[in-house]
């Protein structure tokens, strides 16, 4: 059968189980868009390629499937870059198809030419330039295989226009041919047994769980381990939802803006079971004083993460799910740990997350998050932007399920949350999807309101509006003598009118009494997005806090409000 490169591409996508792609057309991808015209694949048209990438990323995070992007050559491709880097840092499976100028023009600085494989080299798991139509099927197969196996990540496939236009005799059955890439199966049983022995002997164990638990679909196994052995669990930002936040063994998040009791537990633990984590600086603070009394069991699919930042006593390379299963099989249930649990309970009572009352009569952001938690019963998919809005959400929304908290953890990309919410809602239309935003972040991808309106997506955007770039202002206040250099954002649009201009619903919340009603109205929307412009205390801070490079045992704030 004679097929064009673009038709082969779409056929291969369907073979990979893709029914939805996110994209933005342009000159170099005209052949692909022409083929899409007759295809059953659903194409979601964003309004900026950064929105395309974050939406595909949010879709992948919420569903566990591979997110797929299409963008044109040159600026289309470079606009994807932040989204690709975001996915790379958080190990999200994505395949991005970029248009490229015709093969005869490559390297001649042609119109809308950019070396996207060169540009994305350090932020992709792998990337390809497809030079022959004959290679399209194999490359697509390999790209998906690489993106979703082992430690997931984004793959870029650059498609010159003539490669997409050319017709060839197409035969099915392309195979992956990667001798330098093996999918990790199983794990070292000797190491598992050694880990089990350590767990049996531990008196003050703590589980430190991260995004790897979610991508490995290991939340059930993690919970089994924790409940069987009564081991308290703290999660990273990326790990929120990997263990129910309302479980009695949950210590919440650890690290820079973690709970005091989680950080103190790390300081006192004699055994740290680290699962699907990478000992990021925002978690460890000063690595020399991190978990000083603990032996470390580190479970990760990526061998390069083991021993990268801290020394490990028992490294186990493998899928978190398989490794935890192997460990659980070898452990008997125990009763409470007694002394250790009493200590943790005391810390929980003495140092809970808390916040004071408003100093300027506006709403307290923490209260807003608690309210959203109550109204959604912890069952919504929550996305965030980056900064204070992200940290307050991480602290005060008790995530119960994996894949319900979508946030840019590694790269810290402002403007991520809203397009990610679009992707999540497309992937999970029956779930409630809420983007918790700041007034700075939301403006970075506000154009996507047009997308959400076009597809009639009832997403709720809660802008925690303090008219500041709040987290930067907080650091300026703490570490730069209160010199608020360029963080005052009070020159801002009327978000209610802005929402209405896009065809969305806009509601302003000036005071606490209005919050319930506004949230209820927003949650009842069925056919369009709702923007809630919630005026919060201008100088509310995120506490407690470990100053950068400090020790977890030495937290600022949150104890004396």
């Amino acid at each position, binding site marked *: 059968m004679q097929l064009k490169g673009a038709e082969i591409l779409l056929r291969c996508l369907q073979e990979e189980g893709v029914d939805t792609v996110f994209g933005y057309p342009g000159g170099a991808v005209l052949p692909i868009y022409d083929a899409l015209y007759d295809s059953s694949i659903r194409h979601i048209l964003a309004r900026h390629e950064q929105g395309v990438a974050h939406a595909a990323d949010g879709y992948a995070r919420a569903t566990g499937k591979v997110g797929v992007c299409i963008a044109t050559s040159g600026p289309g491709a470079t606009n994807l870059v932040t989204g690709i880097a975001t996915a790379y840092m958080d190990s999200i499976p994505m395949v991005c198809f970029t248009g490229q100028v015709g093969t005869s023009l490559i390297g001649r600085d042609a119109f809308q030419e950019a070396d996207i494989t060169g540009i994305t*080299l350090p932020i992709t798991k792998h990337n390809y330039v497809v030079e022959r139509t004959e290679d399209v099927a194999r490359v697509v197969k390999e790209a998906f295989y690489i993106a979703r196996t082992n430690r997931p990540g984004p793959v870029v496939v650059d498609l010159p226009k003539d490669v997409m236009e050319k017709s060839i005799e197409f035969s099915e059955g392309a195979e992956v041919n990667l001798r*330098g890439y093996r999918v990790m199966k199983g794990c070292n049983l000797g190491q598992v047994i050694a880990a089990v022995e350590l767990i049996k002997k531990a008196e003050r164990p703590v589980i430190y769980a991260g995004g790897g638990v979610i991508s490995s679909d290991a939340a059930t196994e993690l919970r089994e381990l924790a409940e069987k052995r009564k081991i308290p669990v703290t999660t990273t930002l990326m790990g929120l939802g990997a263990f129910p936040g309302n479980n009695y063994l949950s210590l919440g998040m650890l690290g820079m803006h973690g709970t005091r009791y989680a950080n103190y537990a790390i300081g006192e633990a004699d055994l740290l079971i680290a699962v699907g984590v990478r000992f990021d600086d925002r978690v460890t603070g000063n690595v020399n004083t991190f978990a000083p009394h603990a032996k470390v069991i580190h479970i990760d699919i990526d*061998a390069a993460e083991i021993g990268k930042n801290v020394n490990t006593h028992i490294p186990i390379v493998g899928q978190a799910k398989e490794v935890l299963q192997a460990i659980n099989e070898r452990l008997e249930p125990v009763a409470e740990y007694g002394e250790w649990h009493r200590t943790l309970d005391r810390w929980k009572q003495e140092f809970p997350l808390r916040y004071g009352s408003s100093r300027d009569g506006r709403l307290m952001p923490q209260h807003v998050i608690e309210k959203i938690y109550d109204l959604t019963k912890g069952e919504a998919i929550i996305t965030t932007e980056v900064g204070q809005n992200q940290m307050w959400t991480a602290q005060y929304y008790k995530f119960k399920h994996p894949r319900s908290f979508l946030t840019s953890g590694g790269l810290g990309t402002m403007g991520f949350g809203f397009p990610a919410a679009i992707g999540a809602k497309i992937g999970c239309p029956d779930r409630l999807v809420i983007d918790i935003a700041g007034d700075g972040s939301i403006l970075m991808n506000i154009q996507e309101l047009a997308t959400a309106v076009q597809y009639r997506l009832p997403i709720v955007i809660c802008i925690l509006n303090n008219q500041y770039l709040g987290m930067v202002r907080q650091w300026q206040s703490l570490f730069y003598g209160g010199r608020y250099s360029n963080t005052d954002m009070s020159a801002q649009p009327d978000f209610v009118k802005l929402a209405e201009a896009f065809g969305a619903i806009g509601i302003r919340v000036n005071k606490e009494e209005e919050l319930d009603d506004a949230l209820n109205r927003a949650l009842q929307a069925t056919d369009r997005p709702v923007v809630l412009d919630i005026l919060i205390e201008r100088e509310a801070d995120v506490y407690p806090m470990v100053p950068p490079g400090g020790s977890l045992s030495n937290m600022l704030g949150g104890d004396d409000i």
Partner: protein
Amino acid sequence: MKKHTLTVTVENKPGVLTRVTTLFRRRGYNIESLAVGETENPTISRITIIVRGDDRILEQVTKQLYKLVDVIKIVDITEERSVERELVLIKVKADNNVRADIVQIVDIFRARIVDIGKNSLIIEVTGDSSKIDAMVESLRPFGIIELVRTGIVAMVRGEIK
């Protein structure tokens, strides 16, 4: 810090060398010497990399390299019995008064003169680093005009275990 010789077997495809070298730069490791070429199998290239670092750095380098899809195999042959060779071309000032002295040095090092100019000679020498360094030092007093080295290539002795 100890010097390590890594032989890295990779796919013989465009862009693979860039992937390897940018990884070193990105992770902050310095390449001291690098040589690359096709092997007995034309679909495979071999890169010989000399890198300095303690065990921890070497472990990270190796693990990060393995994550590159185009990298097939990495062997640290530092502790192996191996042959290491580098080829160097040296253009040295040589008028009639000193030519005989230079020829003598060339003989001692079993090097070769590959070009004779009016006032210069090009010498080709092959060997391990210590031999080449000694040769360069011996020629320095005559005046080295230009020098180019290929980078070290290496191979483990005997049969593969």
